């Protein structure tokens, strides 16, 4: 009755890794997992930490979900996956608190909220539940890196303009006037909008070049 729509993969498995970086970047292209993207990117450090934490959970959940995919009936799929993800997040949460309380405070509730990051459940549902371990691992890694990259893009810009620093180190002259808005919520939206424009522009340029080559 059911036709396995992702039956036989035809792409090389390295592609699973690469696609998340740009072509299917979870933030710029798929527009998923937006809350942490906006909320914890007011400094580059927070962005990096959040990105790595998310990547850990993403890879972990992809691997686990891929491993148990045959045992989970579709009716309880989501709940089961969420249990897995929540466990991983709890682990991350405690680990960060153990590593640095300050960082834990800066990331706030958003560590816990990794549980509901659409990217993670999205990949579990859309990819890991249909693919083997290795591919799922690569997919998680690629998506996680893509996610971290996007977060860093935002974090760096916002911190630079908003505070004149990068990873806490002053890089702009002391006379620099901070753009407070950049670290406010609205600045998050604007910065992301700006990056989406940049990505659109690059993709448009590529498409045009490809068309030109084809013609």
């Amino acid at each position, binding site marked *: 009755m059911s036709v396995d729509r992702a039956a036989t993969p035809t792409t090389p498995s390295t592609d699973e890794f690469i696609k998340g970086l740009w072509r299917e970047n979870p933030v710029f292209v798929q527009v998923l997992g937006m809350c942490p993207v906006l909320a914890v990117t007011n400094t580059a450090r927070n962005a990096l930490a959040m990105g790595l934490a998310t990547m850990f959970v993403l890879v972990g959940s992809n691997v686990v979900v891929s491993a148990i995919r045959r045992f989970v009936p579709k009716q309880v799929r989501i709940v089961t996956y969420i*249990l897995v993800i929540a466990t991983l997040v709890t682990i991350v949460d405690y680990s960060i608190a153990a590593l640095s309380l300050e960082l834990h405070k800066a990331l706030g509730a958003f560590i816990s909220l990794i549980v509901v990051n659409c990217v993670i459940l999205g990949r579990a549902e859309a990819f890991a539940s249909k693919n083997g371990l290795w591919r799922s691992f690569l997919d998680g890694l690629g998506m996680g890196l893509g996610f971290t990259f996007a977060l860093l893009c935002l974090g760096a810009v916002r911190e630079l303009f908003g505070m004149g620093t990068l990873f806490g180190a002053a890089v702009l002259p002391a006379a620099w006037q901070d753009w407070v808005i950049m670290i406010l919520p609205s600045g998050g939206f604007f910065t992301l909008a700006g990056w989406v424009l940049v990505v659109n522009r690059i993709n448009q340029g590529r498409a045009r070049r490809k068309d030109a080559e084809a013609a």
Partner: protein
Amino acid sequence: MSPDTPRPSDAVALPPPPPAWPMVRALVGVGLVCAVLIVLVYQYTRPIIAANQLEARQAAVFQVLPGAVSSTTYRYVEGEGFTPVADDASGDDLVFAGYDRQGRLVGVAVEAVGMGYQDAVRVLYGYAPDRQAIVGMQVLDSRETPGLGDRANTDPDFLANFAALDVSLTEDGQRIAHPIEAVKHGEKTEPWQIDCITGATITSTAIADMMRESTAVWVPRIAASLDAFQSREVTP
């Protein structure tokens, strides 16, 4: 035929109701494994986190009570007064006594909360009974605007307000003689006034307000039971 069981004209079998056992098995199985994992991590990290938290709290206490090198946590119970409790206790009826190298009481640190410009602001301030004054203040938690309200924790001019903020009691020891108040930047004339940060009058006023309310409650209590804090053996 009820609407949930329409049968296609050509005899495609209705899918049987999903079997219960695999569902239960999968969910419960995963749940159990997760539980064990979480417990393991929790067990491993708990002491570290607790230590971190203690350290953070102590650091704050030492900062608002200059000269303090050790601290003890006290719980206040109405009618019973202050009693020492474990350092990892929690609750909003705690104060933290700070002691200097000689084991003498430097002062007592108290938490206060109030609504700032954007959201609740939580501060810790140190009260030195011998000087009848606040001797330090630190913002523990706030969502104030970076560069404006959050300067409350970094602006040296503002923090200078709290080096010796007068909270002396009236004769009867029941009330603060001069409740803390905020004034516009550069207009501070009295030792119980707080000189606002320019551009963040609201945050500054909020801090002044919450400290006024908090000191009105805690300072008389602490002043009345100074003995409870004095009895402290020196820890090397």
